[in-house]
């Protein structure tokens, strides 16, 4: 029983708030998972208890009296296991079927995994309403969302534990998963398939918000980047949109049109930096731009070696990209 206590503590943790926990139950699948897991947990605990009781009893029992009916016991045991497993199978199958029956209402997000960041595209029948962003996901609460998953290089896995289970992004295949976030809040997703050097730093933020807020966010996302205002920002703009940055990154409405790295159009409105490596703030932004290889060694952004005043200007401009 010693081992049960932490297990129960774990169960208790499900009540705690975590941005990346399985028992967060913030989505349709997440809730079903929590319930099914509880069923499995109780059943397995009962069986574990039975085994331990049997073992302790076998060790401690006094060795007198006749042969107990062990043969019958074996048959009963096999019967009990079989029936229980059949029950668990059916329960699991029912939940699985239920998860797959999520209604689909039309919001489709296309996510492409890259080493080591996420390219996110909100599709629309009207191509000009297509929204492209990176390393973040905004979802309307209560609406099933179809997520189309592709990979540009190796296998990654899409997983927002609070909301739903995993689905792999496999090169040459297009997978999809329907997720239904239910609780408004901030969550975190992390790549769940080993994808190379910086697998540990391949996360993104998930914001579940009311539909109205979501639509507002989408509309804002379609706007081009803010124009620089202060002289410092203008100097940063000049650097970012003409030099190394622009070769890889896109900032809508500017000459920075690179397509091989995360979109920076509304960078400063995101919650984190470097695919969940740093929280977003000016200090981290400066640290990241100055030396992206220090916090996330091996990522594809090179060390440019900016002079201090250039760095100031660049960070000042990037910070203004709300």
């Amino acid at each position, binding site marked *: 029983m010693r081992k049960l206590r932490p297990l129960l503590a774990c169960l208790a943790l499900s009540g705690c708030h975590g941005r990346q926990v399985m028992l967060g139950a913030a989505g349709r699948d997440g809730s079903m998972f929590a319930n099914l897991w509880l069923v499995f947990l109780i059943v397995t605990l009962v069986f574990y208890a039975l085994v331990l009781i049997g073992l302790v009893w076998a060790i401690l029992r006094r060795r007198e009296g006749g042969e107990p009916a062990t043969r019958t016991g074996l048959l009963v045991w096999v019967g009990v296991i079989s029936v229980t497993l059949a029950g668990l199978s059916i329960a699991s199958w029912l939940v699985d079927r239920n998860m797959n029956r999520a209604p689909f209402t039309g919001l489709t997000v296309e996510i492409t995994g890259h080493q080591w960041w996420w390219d996110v595209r909100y599709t629309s029948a009207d191509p000009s309403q297509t929204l492209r962003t990176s390393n973040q996901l905004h979802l309307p609460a209560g609406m099933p969302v179809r997520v189309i998953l592709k990979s540009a*290089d190796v296998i990654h896995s899409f997983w927002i534990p609070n909301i739903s289970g995993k689905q792999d992004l496999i*090169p040459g295949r297009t997978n999809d998963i329907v997720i239904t976030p239910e609780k408004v809040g901030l969550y975190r997703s992390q790549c769940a398939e080993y994808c190379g*050097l910086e697998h540990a730093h391949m996360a993104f933020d998930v914001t579940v918000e009311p539909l109205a807020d979501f639509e507002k966010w989408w509309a804002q996302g379609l706007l081009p980047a803010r124009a620089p205002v202060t002289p410092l920002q203008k100097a940063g703009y000049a650097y970012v949109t*003409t*030099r*190394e940055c*622009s*070769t*890889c990154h896109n900032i809508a409405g500017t000459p920075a049109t690179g397509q*091989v790295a995360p979109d920076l159009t509304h960078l400063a409105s995101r919650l984190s930096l470097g695919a969940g490596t740093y929280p977003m703030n000016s200090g981290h932004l400066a640290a990241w731009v100055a030396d992206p*290889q220090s916090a996330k*060694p*091996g*990522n*594809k952004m*090179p*060390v*440019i*070696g900016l002079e201090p005043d250039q760095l100031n200007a660049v960070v000042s401009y990037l910070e203004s990209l709300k």
Partner: protein
Amino acid sequence: MSSPCRASLLALVLLAGCDEQARDPRGHPLPETGPLLSAAMNPARPDPRAVDYYKNAFEVSQGQQLFQWMNCSGCHSNGGGGMGPALSDTKWRYGSSMADIVQTIANGRPNGMPSFSGKLTQAEMWQLAAYVRSLSQHVPQSIRSGRTEGLSVGEPSTLRDPHPPRAVTPKQDEASVE
């Protein structure tokens, strides 16, 4: 085999192994602010950085990725050329040394090669140069890879002639004569 002999052999393997297989995400820069390509001016003394790139599998693979990302493949295809000259043959209009190639990438060339100075870091240019050399088997066979994850582009580089044809250094191709 005597034990000192064995030890030295091991050390040799060790050195070779480290060079070719190491992965340094920062590249092998002399200081980024240092003089650009000083060695390119002096062909007698090759740039000390060169060997760190073209004899390193990781750097070549990074160069390969940049070759796609920076649209080099748009002109030079997978070495066969198209808008730009072929890189997989034996003709080198502007020199075949690592420093020459970096110079070409950095400053461009008059017949259409654009300049990437200010668009790429020096380390990236060296990685690209290493990959460009690999297109004509100018890097050790052991660090080339059999294929890319993509459309098959013919004979795998690992099987091409391990003895590369000797490079022809700056000789004006008649096509480039105006």
